[in-house]
């Protein structure tokens, strides 16, 4: 057990190493990205730029710069932004995380709720019109670009219709912290939640329906039916439980990826300054320290959620232990 965890850790570190080196190299391969001229200001003299380069260690060989930056990021944790000098990047990441978490958690509640509902209905009314309609709706959910949905949502709720009774409650874009105003928090997030959830509702409803139908044909379900349980009871108590196993692993991966910054487009369009927005902004301003911090944060989440899912999978489904 211990050795397996250590192996997993080593693999994780190797992956993170690869990613950070990649980001680092890409940055320095970008012409015009050299922060010295930008830090120095417009039309700075060559001497000033040279001094800035020296001050920020930008004249050192790349591996040394890489090592220094990693040390500042992980050990001393005082890595500061190239753009907003003096701004430490690690606290920024931790400040943005709750916003992303608010967004993703709310969306997750919505998508799981709706997906289970739609999946159950579709499985219960398998091959009827209801099933067809629900599955087509799910397909539409999967097929819409999320930023487009977000833009459309904004167009409707912030544009012409903003002053109609239907959307007059919609607050301006941006995040409201929960402790400032729980209601404001809810109002600010409700549309982003649904926007982000749509894709996953479609995805999970389809997966769940397929899993339910598959499970309903297994022996133990037949036994349950034979015992005289109603179709609804079978579906709710037996089939759903086992079908949810597949959903759990799926959920772990998606949740991890979204918390890690996968909700970038939603955050950008709705002006929610979470991890995705932070990353986006760092990329816009080519702020290498911030990019490194957010990317590594994001990949830690992705890698960890992968690991957690693997463990969960082994715990929930003993058959999987043999298969893996």
């Amino acid at each position: 057990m211990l050795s397996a965890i250590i192996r997993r850790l080593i693999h994780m570190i190797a992956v993170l190493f690869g990613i950070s080196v990649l980001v680092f190299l890409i940055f320095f391969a970008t012409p015009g990205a050299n922060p010295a001229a930008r830090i120095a200001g417009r039309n700075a003299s060559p001497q000033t730029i040279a001094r800035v380069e020296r001050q920020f260690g930008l004249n050192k060989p790349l591996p040394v710069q890489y090592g220094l930056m990693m040390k500042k990021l992980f050990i001393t944790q005082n890595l500061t932004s190239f753009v907003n000098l003096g701004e430490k990047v690690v606290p920024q990441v931790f400040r943005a995380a709750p916003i992303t978490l608010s967004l993703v958690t709310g969306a997750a509640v919505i998508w799981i709720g709706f997906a289970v509902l739609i999946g159950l209905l579709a499985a219960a009314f398998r091959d009827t019109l209801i099933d067809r309609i629900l599955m087509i709706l799910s397909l539409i959910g999967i097929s819409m670009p999320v930023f487009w949905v977000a833009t459309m949502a904004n167009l409707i709720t912030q544009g012409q219709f903003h002053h109609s009774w239907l959307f007059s409650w919609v607050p301006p874009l941006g995040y409201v912290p929960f402790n400032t105003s729980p209601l404001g928090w809810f109002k600010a997030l409700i549309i982003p939640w649904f926007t982000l959830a749509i894709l996953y509702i479609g995805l999970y409803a389809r997966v769940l329906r397929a899993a339910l139908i598959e499970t309903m044909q297994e022996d133990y379900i037949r036994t349950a039916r034979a015992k005289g349980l109603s179709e609804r009871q079978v579906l709710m108590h037996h089939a759903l439980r086992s079908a949810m196993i597949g959903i759990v692993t799926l959920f772990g991966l998606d949740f991890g990826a979204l918390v890690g910054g996968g909700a970038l487009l939603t955050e950008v369009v709705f002006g929610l300054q979470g991890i995705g927005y932070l990353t986006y902004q760092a990329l816009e301003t080519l702020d290498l320290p911030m990019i490194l911090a957010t990317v590594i944060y994001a990949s830690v989440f992705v890698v960890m959620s992968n690991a957690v899912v693997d463990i969960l999978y082994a715990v929930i489904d003993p058959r999987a232990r043999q298969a893996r």
Partner: protein
Amino acid sequence: MNNLLEVRDLTKHYTSRHGFAGKRVVRAVNGVSFEIAPGEALGLVGESGCGKSTLGRCIARLYNVTSGSVTFDGTDITRLGGRALRPIRAGLQMIFQDPYASLNPRRRVGEIIAEPLHVHHRGNKAAMTARVASLLSDVGLGPEALTRFPHEFSGGQRQRIGIARALALDPKLIIADEPVSALDVSVQAQIVNLLADLQRDRGLAYLFIAHDLGVVRQIADRVAVMYLGGIVEIGPVASVFGSPAHPYTRALLDAVPVADPALTHRDRIRLAGDPPNPANPPSGCAFHPRCAWATAECRTVKPLLRTLADGRETACHHPLTARVEPADR
């Protein structure tokens, strides 16, 4: 000695990883030695999981061997690899258990049977076509099978295709890994007969792996009984099956649901429990937890194969042929 195949102290260990459970070494085959003479059929029997399939695949060099040696036709093939092994392979072919899995579903039967000929560059196209047709007829299939896909055939027919493929290179030894166990009983006999005919006509040697003792009795000259990675008894079919020396052999025979005049119902012994985990084998004689005659010695000292009076060998501290039956329990 002029043996076609000599296996000495063959050992195969797996390292398996079980997710978060860590590493385990599984001793699938543990120091097995035997030999097969040209034209001879050796049956290899044992419960599933005893390592007999692994042994067969090690000999065919589908798997790498952990230690020991395999000598085929005078050549030590234990450590040969890739290119050097290829000419040897022509003489040593396999038939697999599952006729559904052993044929590539995406390829036509003609291609499947011609594949060995292609790999070994046997003749030109025309010669190959003729050869494939004759192989098909040898195993009792018509030429119309050539352009069909495996899924269009029944299990027995598919096994015939597998046999035709094994015969394509005129091998001296065929390792048949439970070739009939996946088939219907009625079809089993046909295939066994076909194999017996081929042996007779072509002077083939067989390593015939099976858990069905009846089939082995029908085709094999000698038989080896395997338990938990090791051979516990080996000798001529008549004597091993006639008067088993090892309690395990006896238990296997007793499990066969056919009337056997030698044993009354009362006398039959039954195997209790599952075979032990090969990753964690019992001390001493591996069979002792399930053996009715086990003594203190069996629990501590591992018995080695020794030759009994009638020339067969057995690995038991207390062979049945030398002792009275235990009291009825």
